[in-house]
């Protein structure tokens, strides 16, 4: 089990920087999700750790040792590919045994370890099948068993569940988490599916344009995004812009463009500077427009679209020239009709100051 460090990594493809001075430490035993849109650099980073991508600058360190010059087959890294890349001419058992066989492990030990690996992924009894005779979920399990049987120092997963249907994906998420915890292996995976990242990861890093824009636990990144991209990519966010009007005890009063005043926690703010606030749709409360209580963190608006989805309803509320998204659990309150004038409020803690 091992720690992986990326130090100041740069990888350019022509003019485009796939990795633009990125550093990150993946701790021992951690389940780490790399999240971002396609082309943001997350896959390049995974492939740099595997050894398929050679960095232009910077280092990949495994337990403190720079492995930049180590060829892929000597890195002892397990990898599960998006389409599993099972060998079509080999049976399940031969696929799993491959990594042991090329290392010249004795055949009795191979047998033993293959059967352990297959029971770990719950595929006992399918040893003699060919990959084509397996379902997508079973192929995924074989790929996982094959990657883990050599006891690699790090496990890399490239869009591990992308090819599975929704039901199977949820089942495999639980399975993956269980296996990762049992084995205790440092695991780094790439996904563009934010739900998957939130469910599986101990920590996540959000990539954009070759840089990590924010990293932390899923809860932390979701609740306290530090910039507009992270706030908008992970979940949904409403952005309110304004100017700092006053600062007291680490709290700023921001005069929003709509004229309302919002309080937000923030350090080192100058009076008069531009400020951008992010508020999650589920943190906005809707009140009748007859409720005219004065105060901060309040916006008047009109209900636009109403999207009913069973246990919850999403509203688009028109506030001046901005449309805000509000998410409300259907816990007995009446569903509001389009055209209803309303007031939106939020608690000071619910707004987060984010960088542009």
């Amino acid at each position: 089990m091992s720690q992986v460090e990326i130090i100041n990594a740069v990888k350019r493809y022509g003019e485009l920087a796939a990795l633009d001075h990125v550093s990150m430490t993946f701790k021992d035993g951690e389940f780490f999700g790399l999240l971002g849109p396609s082309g943001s650099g997350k896959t390049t980073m995974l492939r740099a750790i595997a050894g398929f991508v050679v960095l232009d600058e910077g280092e990949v360190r495994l337990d403190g040792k720079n492995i930049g010059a180590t060829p892929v087959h000597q890195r002892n890294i397990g990898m599960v590919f998006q389409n599993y890349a099972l060998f079509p001419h080999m049976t399940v058992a031969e696929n799993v045994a491959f990594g042991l066989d090329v290392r010249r492990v004795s055949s009795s030990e191979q047998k033993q370890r293959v059967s352990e690996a297959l029971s770990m992924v719950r595929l006992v009894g399918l040893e003699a099948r060919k990959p084509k005779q397996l379902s997508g979920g079973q192929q995924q399990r074989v790929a996982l068993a094959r990657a883990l049987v050599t006891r690699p120092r790090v496990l890399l997963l490239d869009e591990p569940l992308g090819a599975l249907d929704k039901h199977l994906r949820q089942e495999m998420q639980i399975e993956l988490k269980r296996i990762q915890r049992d084995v205790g292996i440092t695991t780094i995976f790439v996904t563009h599916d934010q739900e998957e990242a939130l469910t599986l990861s101990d920590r996540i890093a959000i990539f954009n344009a070759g840089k990590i824009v924010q990293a932390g636990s899923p809860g932390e990144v979701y609740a306290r995004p530090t910039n507009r991209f992270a706030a908008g990519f992970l979940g949904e966010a409403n952005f309110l812009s304004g100017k700092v009007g006053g600062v007291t005890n680490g709290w700023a009063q921001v005069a929003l463009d709509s004229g309302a005043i919002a309080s937000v926690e923030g350090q080192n703010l100058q009076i008069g500077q531009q400020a951008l606030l992010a508020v999650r749709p589920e943190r906005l409360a809707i009140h009748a427009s007859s409720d005219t209580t004065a105060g901060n963190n309040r916006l008047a608006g009109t209900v636009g679209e109403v999207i009913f989805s069973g246990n919850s309803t999403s509203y688009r509320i028109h506030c001046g020239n901005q449309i805000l998204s509000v998410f409300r659990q259907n816990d007995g309150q009446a569903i509001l009709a389009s055209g209803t004038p309303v007031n939106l409020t939020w608690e000071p803690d619910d707004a987060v100051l984010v960088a542009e």
Partner: protein
Amino acid sequence: MSAAKTTSVSSFKIGPLVLRLHLVLVLLFLYVPIIVMAALSFNQSQLYELPFTFDLVWYKSLAGDSRLIDAGINSVVIAVINTVVATVLGTMAALAFARYQFRGKSLLQLLLFPPITIPWLVIGTAMLVFFFWTGIGRGLHAILLGHVALSLPYVIIVVGARLANFPRQMEEAAATLGATPWQTFWRVTAPILAPGVIAAALFAFAVSFDQFVISYFLAPPGVTTLPVAIYAAIRKGFTPEINAISTIIIVVSMGIMLITARFYRFGGER
């Protein structure tokens, strides 16, 4: 595969009888001359007279014809050597095309196709002139060179088609599992590529074994391959012996094509 089956079954159901009739006619057009020729090889009459009397006399006389037998041995030897050489070189070239970027690559790839469409007569003439001019001369070695040159584009194109669908992730997976590039090639790449390579080898064999023009041009007096010997024999006078040897060639060629189809499925995934 199953989709194709369903379509043809349903079209037979819906489609008019004409379709079936058409199919039968096409097949007759293709095979009647061959069947007649093969049948006459078993007919006793030297002058192709009916009624048909079954006899193996022409096969027996063929067995005593050392000229045709020597030519046959030459043909098989050249075809086998050609198959090995063209398949190895062609597969390597196909791998280079698929895996590496180099100057002039697309031009080279484009230049693979004309030799397939240029008439063999023209290529044969060019080779004869070139071999004479360079001092390579005529002979079995020249025939072999010509056949290899002729088979190479086929091999490269057939293996290349297989490589185009080759999932590179298989090789990457093998590398992460600790396989050296050498192990990866022999244990992953080669087995997955094998059907394409076998199909290409059969193509190369057929191109060489059936080759007349090039062999005719490049054979010195006294040395022949089977098609050339048959041509020479026919010029002297048609005998059912020719039918017999032709029947043998057809059986061998069709056998090869059937095996090729089994491996290659003409472009499709098996």
